[in-house]
């Protein structure tokens, strides 16, 4: 009868909800999606007589893409979260309207904005695609192509960015932004040449809020692919995963302790705090030799070209320390 709390109604109200909130928290940090492997874009055949100007973006990467193209969206999902996690210039204008959570945006708030384009992400918004389309033409993208497709997350990011640039009639600007990103990568690669950072492989991790877990990114992850552009080598080879990470805890770290450890965490994560006292952690080679670098909690490694530049800049900063 002990299931009464923990499992039975615990499921309905407690545990299930913990799962839900846990997962949505996970989403706050990992803008994950999943979808039909063969395509990264849904209803790409949209035709616009006039380039859309009133755009609602339901996922942060597309908010960022629009800003990079010089367009302020009219509505954005979870603006507080965007401002917390995504640090790019230009910033969102104060006039942009919050339309609720990314997972369940307020359809009424979106309708009220009378947008002429809605951009969403497949996993979250496919279920409501029809309703969104009834409000305005809707583009859904899938930033996490299945490994079998051979489409890398970094390529998908660039393609989607260009697609959005095309839709809003800003191709030239889009090409320029991508060109700048690539030259930033090249400059960074040159800067790191011969440096200690380039001689050892790296691992990239993200502490999961509220749980003793680290997501270690593998070669499928966009962030890892960006660092590979800097001629750095990823030491973490976990199981192949569509989203590009494997969830581990410090037991898995000794195996890769000779790498440089870049990590993203909220400073007040209690499990991260506890590590400082933990002898396993203190004894890891990258801790003893001071080769672990916090690159902040506001490094958005699931973003667009500008976030990619911010991410590279953080890595360069870590190298200078």
């Amino acid at each position, binding site marked *: 009868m002990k299931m009464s709390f923990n*499992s*039975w109604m615990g499921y309905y109200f407690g545990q299930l909800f913990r799962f*839900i909130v846990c997962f949505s928290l996970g989403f706050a940090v990992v803008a994950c999606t999943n979808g039909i492997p063969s395509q990264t874009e849904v209803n790409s055949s949209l035709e616009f007589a006039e380039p859309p100007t009133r755009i609602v973006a339901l996922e942060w990467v597309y908010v960022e893409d629009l800003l990079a193209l010089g367009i302020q969206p009219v509505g954005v999902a979870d603006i507080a979260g965007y401002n917390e996690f995504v640090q790019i210039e230009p910033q969102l204008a104060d006039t942009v309207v919050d339309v*609720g959570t990314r997972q369940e945006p307020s359809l009424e708030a979106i309708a009220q904005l009378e947008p002429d384009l809605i951009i969403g992400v497949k996993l979250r918004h496919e279920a409501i695609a029809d309703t969104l389309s009834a409000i305005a033409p809707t583009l859904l993208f899938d930033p996490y192509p299945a490994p079998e497709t051979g489409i890398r997350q970094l390529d998908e990011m660039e393609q989607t960015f260009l697609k959005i640039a095309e839709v809003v009639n800003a191709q030239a600007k889009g090409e320029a932004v991508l060109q700048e990103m690539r030259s930033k990568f090249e400059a960074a690669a040159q800067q790191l040449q011969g440096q200690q950072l380039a001689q050892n492989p790296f691992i990239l991790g993200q502490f999961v809020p509220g749980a003793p877990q680290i997501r270690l990114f593998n070669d499928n992850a966009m962030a890892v692919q960006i660092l590979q552009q800097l001629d750095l080598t990823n030491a973490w080879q976990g199981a192949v995963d569509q989203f590009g990470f494997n969830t*581990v805890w*410090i037991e898995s770290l000794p195996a890769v302790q000779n790498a440089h450890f870049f990590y993203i965490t909220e400073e007040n994560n209690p499990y991260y705090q506890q590590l400082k006292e933990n002898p396993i952690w203190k004894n890891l080679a990258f801790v003893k030799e001071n080769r672990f670098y916090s690159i902040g909690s506001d490094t958005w490694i699931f973003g667009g070209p500008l976030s990619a530049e911010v991410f590279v800049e953080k890595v360069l900063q870590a190298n200078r320390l």
Partner: protein
Amino acid sequence: MFKIFESKLSPLASRQLTSAVLILLGGLLLLVMLLFIHIIQGQTDINIGTTINAIVAPNDELATHNIVRLMRLPRAAIAVITGCAWGIAGALLQTVTRNPLASSSTLGINAGAYFAVAATGIFAPDLFARSPVLVALTGGLLAAGLTYAIASGAQVSPIRLTLSGVAVSLALASFTALLQVFYENQTTGLFFWGAGSLLQTDWSNSVYAFPRVAIAAGLALLMSHSLDVLLLGDDMARSLGQRVQLTRLSATAIAVFLAAVAVSVVGPIGFIGLVAPHLVRLMGCRPHALLLPGSAIWGAVVLVAADIFAQSVKTNLSEIPVGTVIPLVGAPFLIGLVRKTANLDGGKGRTALASSHRPSRRFSYPLLLGTAIVALAVALVAGLVWGGITLNLSQILATFLGGGTALSQKVIFSLRLPRLLVAIFAGASLAVSGLLLQGVVRNAIAGPEIVGITSGAGLGAMCVLILLPNPPVEAVAIAAFVGAFVAFAAVCLLAWRDGLSPASLALVGIAVSAFCSSGINLLVVMAKLRVAQALVWLSGSTYAREWVDLWRLIAWPLVLLPIAWIFSRWLDIMALGDDVPRLVGIPLQKARGILLTIAVALAAAAVSTVGTISFVGLIAPHAARILVGTNHRKLVPFAAILGALLVAISDTIGRVVLAPKEIPAGLVVAAIGTPYFLWLLWQTRGKMA
């Protein structure tokens, strides 16, 4: 079942010696073996030689040694400590209540402790930091007190105590879930812990829990003799010079303390306190001098074994908390226990459902029905007026007459109206489903969630969502249907013993629900982020429901509600007991079968459309009974309207309160329903079961 409690106070016979050896030495041996497996298990392979070296000749410089000594050993230790604590607590509670189904969560103790911890974690973090156990203890005691108060009557039967404990847990768990929604940031750290994970990062929890559990266990052991005497009955115990109340009180206090310590270090983990003492008794051991240490050892065995299983389920996303897998073992165990237990109700299985509510005589039925219909209409209009944006009445009227702006057209016709109508029909279906179930089971707190329908539907839907890469909505709905029927059929089959006794139906239903819920949680974790949309659905939501959802749902209530109304007359007669229907020529089992089928179909239709909205099937029928009495022909329409009203209002509130953020209707129903539910239980105390 009570037979097993009748211990003879004779000296240990040779048979008892054998069982003592089996229980203590066998259990210890098994525990050591399991611990060995447990310790060599983990994310990295550490071989046995290194593991032994790490224990006997630790080298601080070696990562492998540190992992063994600072992660794996503390995890094993905390499993043993809390397993012992829950095992002893369960044994004590079973003796004190003379209830074979008692354990720290049967009495709401785990739920109370967890709620107290969550609440103080948010509102008084300093207090929580000062003494987590004190906080958990207070919560546990209050919850246990509430359970007793609700169950109290002339004679506390196992079923009544169990069901009121379940009810209290239900209410507290929904409070906890609400806290987690509204104070997301302050409670994030609680989630992993709250799911019952044993993962440790140092020895601090063990150092904290060990002395407390050891002392409490020692005190319990000192009471062995008094506890033995207690089982002979109060009168006998008194004549043997026992201070019965004192023994009861102190044993209960020790049990609650043990459970509170365990909950405060690893979160609420179920079933151990139920399983361990029964395992020991099954091996032929009765006296508490053996039962208590035996329950401790076997509690540890169960928890360590479950944790081994939990760790061995590989997943890329997350570790699976042991609390999630325990019901996979515990639920079948409970079902077995229920099947073996004769006379669970402590009587004829007669519930006082029919007489528990006197109808309100002040109002005539047509007046009440009319008022309810008007209220529903008002709720519908209110739902059209308020939301992310506010439309006034003239705008709405204009829109309905074909005018209005493009925006008001969109908001009303493609957003608000379909979801409100879905809410109304789902609410009505759930309410009538609950009404029929309560009538057949003759239990005041039966509902679609109690007899396994809701979680069965959830498990069915989850299987499809995970097995098929991109399932069509129809497949998910069909799977939910199949899941509901399979789960309920399993409940009926497993509870069947010369017919369906209401008590065993409810208990087996709870066990099957737990089993399905575990399965859902396992699938959620193993399937990774793919199930995000499923999670939203499972939380019970009317979000973004469209006309297609309404068309998919509406046929069921439109067909089944009138049928339910026609057959509902049987319930009036069935309420009078098992004999009366036979006398008037109603084939009892067949009637039950028909009514239950209708109930399951209604609930499955609702669940497959709006997910797992609980409480509607519990509350609406009760409120209806209070207002219109016991005539089911009157109750069916009235309960349907109340259910519709409840979900429609919840949908509107969920859209308005935190706009543009939406709260799932299921949670709003819980917020409205929980206080009502507790009040209701209080009102029916002494009449239930």
